[in-house]
């Protein structure tokens, strides 16, 4: 077991850090204030190959491992939570399921432009009545001749209006089990923006990751080709769950980055801020809090990297992913909150990054599976 990063991974981190400092950090505050999607940054990331890091080269990607991808989201999130989630949702929730379950034709048609960053991806599972209870899906897909007809809506979709390719889940049938209970059969589909019958509803006004495009998707007799069924009919729920396992690693990396960014800012601040004739970093209360924050961040990092390594080497990595996401998100919330506190009054002022980081951190405990869901996954495995 080697805890040291390889030279390649170190160099990759240098690349991501340099890009984040130069291209992303200067815009972070403005993106948050104006809630404008950072399209320019997305184009630069596309050029640098950041939108297809774990996708194999033959499909237009960089052919790197999940750890390299996680490090990219981590470094971006250290300076901007919005930018981190854009990459994470696109890569883990759209590129990955098409890579895993797509036909060769689907990969050529959709995965290649996604991995090259020519198109942006999104994932539509959540509905007004189906959050943690994902089986509560109401969106329906009915096969009519050569087309699937979709009806329903999805909410809280990341990359919402900015994406071009969407992985959408819908009910395609019902089965009755031996006990007479009916269970929905859910399938996954690839839907392109601009398809007649596919429109957008409300843009959500959020507490944090305000530059992220979060929209309602509306399907009204939306017809898509038969070929756009992703994976097997009726197996959509499994596809969603497996995809979310990978997505959780991305979000865990985002949470980790937010925590690290907040810690770094706070360390700088307490060295400069003087009260009672000395830097507040000289007070043991401050020092002990920083020590606790740093220790938790270290632990979170190891869990995130371990989950990434598990994805590279294991077929199933749900537990590792759930553990990393649960811990990193809670650490992010705790560390960013403490960061604001240690900044005192200035921590509450929007010019200081830490207040944005605290607002950004909250969602990591909620999306792609709430912390409660992660606890269900972990305890479920223990008590099997």
């Amino acid at each position, binding site marked *: 077991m080697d805890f040291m990063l390889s*030279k*390649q991974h170190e*160099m*990759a981190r240098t*690349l991501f850090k*340099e*890009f984040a400092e130069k291209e992303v950090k200067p815009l972070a505050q403005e993106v948050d204030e104006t809630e404008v999607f950072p399209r320019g940054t997305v184009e630069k990331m596309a*050029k*640098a*190959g*950041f939108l297809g*890091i774990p996708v194999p*080269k033959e499909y237009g*990607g*960089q*052919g*790197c491992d999940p750890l*390299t991808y996680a490090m*990219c989201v981590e470094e971006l999130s250290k300076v901007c939570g919005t930018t981190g989630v854009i990459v994470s949702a696109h890569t883990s929730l759209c590129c990955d399921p098409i890579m895993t379950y797509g036909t060769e034709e689907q990969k050529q048609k959709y995965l290649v432009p996604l991995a090259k960053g020519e198109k942006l991806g999104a994932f539509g599972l959540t509905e007004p009545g189906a959050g943690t209870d994902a089986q509560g899906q109401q969106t329906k897909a009915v096969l009519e001749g050569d087309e699937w007809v979709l009806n329903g809506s999805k909410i809280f979709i990341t990359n919402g209006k900015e994406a071009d390719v969407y992985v959408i889940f819908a009910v395609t049938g019902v089965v009755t089990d031996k006990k007479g209970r009916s269970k929905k059969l859910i399938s996954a589909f690839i839907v392109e923006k601009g398809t007649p019958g596919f429109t957008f509803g409300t843009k959500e006004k959020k507490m944090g990751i305000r530059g992220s495009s979060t929209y309602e998707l509306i399907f009204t007799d939306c017809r898509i080709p038969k070929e756009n069924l992703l994976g097997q009919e009726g197996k959509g729920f499994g596809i969603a769950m497996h995809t979310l396992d990978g997505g959780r690693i991305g979000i865990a990396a985002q949470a980790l980055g937010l925590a690290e960014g907040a810690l770094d800012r706070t360390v700088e601040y307490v060295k400069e801020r003087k009260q009672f004739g000395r830097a507040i970093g000289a007070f043991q209360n401050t020092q002990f809090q920083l020590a606790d924050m740093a220790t938790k961040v270290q632990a979170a990092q190891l869990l995130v990297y371990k989950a990434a390594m598990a994805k590279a080497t294991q077929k199933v990595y749900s537990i590792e992913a759930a553990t990393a996401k649960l811990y990193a998100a809670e650490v992010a919330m705790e560390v960013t909150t403490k960061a604001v506190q240690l900044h005192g009054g200035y921590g509450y002022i929007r010019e200081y990054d830490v207040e944005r980081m605290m607002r950004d951190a909250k969602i990591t405990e909620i999306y792609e599976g709430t912390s409660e869901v992660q606890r269900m996954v972990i305890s479920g495995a223990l008590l099997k």
Partner: protein
Amino acid sequence: MKIVVCIKQVPDTKGGVKFNPDGTLDRGAMLTIMNPDDKAGLEAALRLKDKYDAEVTVVTMGLPKAEEVLREAIAMGADKGVLVTDRVLGGADTWATSQTLAGAIRNLEYDLIITGRQAIDGDTAQVGPQISEHLGIPVISYAQKIEIEGDSVIVERQFDDRYHVLKAKMPCLITALAELNEPRYMTPGGIFDAYNAEITVWGRANLVNVEDSNLGLKGSPTQIAKASDKVRKGAGEKVNLDAAESVDYIIDKLKVKHVI
């Protein structure tokens, strides 16, 4: 078309400066980066590669760890890397460095050699032109724009308040300014490929037409008398006067200090 790009691994000023007892830099102990002018030269070569399908070979002289800067160049898109490293080459000034690099480059085929204008550690801007002299090829320095026309290069050379347009037949050498372009980022995949690439490593024995008396610290006409980190001065004297009074005050001070 074959392009050789000389790049240097230099200290990253963010990391602090460390010296050996003889006044030379303790490069092994410092944070390092690719010299900015060289990076621009590399980017220029890569753009020519994109346009004309050229082959780009990067060459660096340094400690074994200078290999990192070759990997970075390959991750950006260079095709081959050559590391020139040997104990006897260490401590070289610009004369010995240019002798070494010319000796190495004599092993390679090239239509164009691109170097950075100057390195941020030495700041002499001598090595590029010296290499061209050793190799007997024309040099155009301070390039702010490079174009190829048939068997020649057409270069805009930066000058004080204007620029000159020069044309030279290849093979020739061009020194690049950091302002020449915005270098591309490495790609994540490129980094992993770069570490799989084979770096050619040459020592003193591989240098062609070079004498020992021109190599290393011993072969360096420039000797370092003293080297130190920047000494932090005091805050100085602050005076608030109007413009006319300020001028008189400053002139008096300069006279007292025998500056004028």
